[in-house]
């Protein structure tokens, strides 16, 4: 006796076969990836062009993604950032923000894995203000138990102004 898998009709169909229905294939046309060698040549051309752009300084306003005060901020020149933390610098001091994850301009973006090199980007900021936050009320109340606690919490705040984002090519 023959098992079902040994029948000749069963072996003519390969194991991943699915009969064609409206849901058997995705609704978009199948993706054709380009040839690896052509792709490598194209990539090298693009990188060369971008390096030339950067070396000649032909970029306008740059933006950067910065890791600061346990948060990531998307930042350009002349914009303000408020962090709920105390920094050692005094008001008016200039600070260099070193953890840069991404830098981009109009024509190109440089993505770090995960951080970009210190020699390539320079982000400078000034400490403008070191205040306290508005008083936040932390209240606990249980009804019918005569229990309530009230506490006023005030966080220190630091206001930074990003002065410049510089991009130098090596």
């Amino acid at each position, binding site marked *: 006796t023959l098992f079902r898998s040994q029948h000749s009709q069963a072996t003519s169909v390969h194991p991943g076969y699915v009969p064609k229905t409206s849901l058997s294939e995705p609704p978009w046309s199948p993706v054709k990836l380009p040839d690896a060698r052509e792709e490598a040549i194209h990539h090298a051309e693009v990188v060369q062009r971008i390096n030339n752009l950067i070396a000649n300084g032909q970029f306008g306003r*740059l933006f950067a993604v910065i890791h600061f005060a346990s948060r990531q901020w998307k930042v350009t020149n*002349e914009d*303000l950032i408020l962090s709920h933390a105390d920094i050692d610098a005094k008001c*008016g001091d200039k600070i260099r923000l070193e953890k840069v994850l991404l830098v981009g301009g109009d024509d190109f973006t440089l993505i770090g894995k995960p951080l970009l090199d210190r020699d390539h980007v320079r982000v400078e900021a000034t400490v403008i*203000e070191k205040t306290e936050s*508005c008083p936040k*009320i932390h209240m606990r109340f249980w009804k019918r138990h005569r229990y309530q606690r009230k506490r006023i919490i005030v966080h220190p705040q630091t206001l930074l102004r990003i002065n410049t984002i510089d991009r130098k090519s090596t």
Partner: protein
Amino acid sequence: MTSRGTPSRFLQSVLRNGLGRYVCQLKRLTLVFSKEARSSHGAREFIEENIVDFAKQNPSIVMYVAPQKCSHPKLIAEYLNGAVKEEQINRKTGEEIVQLVQKLANQSGLDIIRIRKLYHTDSPSIQGQWHPFINKPTSLNVKDRKS
């Protein structure tokens, strides 16, 4: 009160402060105290020991010292945007007053209320703001008219 019941503002700085040069926003500090009362003991200590050093470190702040007959001494801080802040220094030690004065000098005169966003940009988009038709074929826009 909740943040909905209290006033709020967006993050801002006074007259683009950090861009060119940093300007200390505190312009005038008036210290009102009495010469004999025990509540002004800390204020008198501050005047004897710390005020001259503080004034030398911050030459842009004008300090006035006003001995009057008052039961509660106070510090009046005036800022460049016109805001006036009064702080009670009743029965505080000299060191506490030093820290308070430093805190006032670090502030700008903007209201201390809830700040809606922790960031502010004047140019939010550089590579162009995203819209659903970016990176889609323009043939989506073409429609055949049955004439």
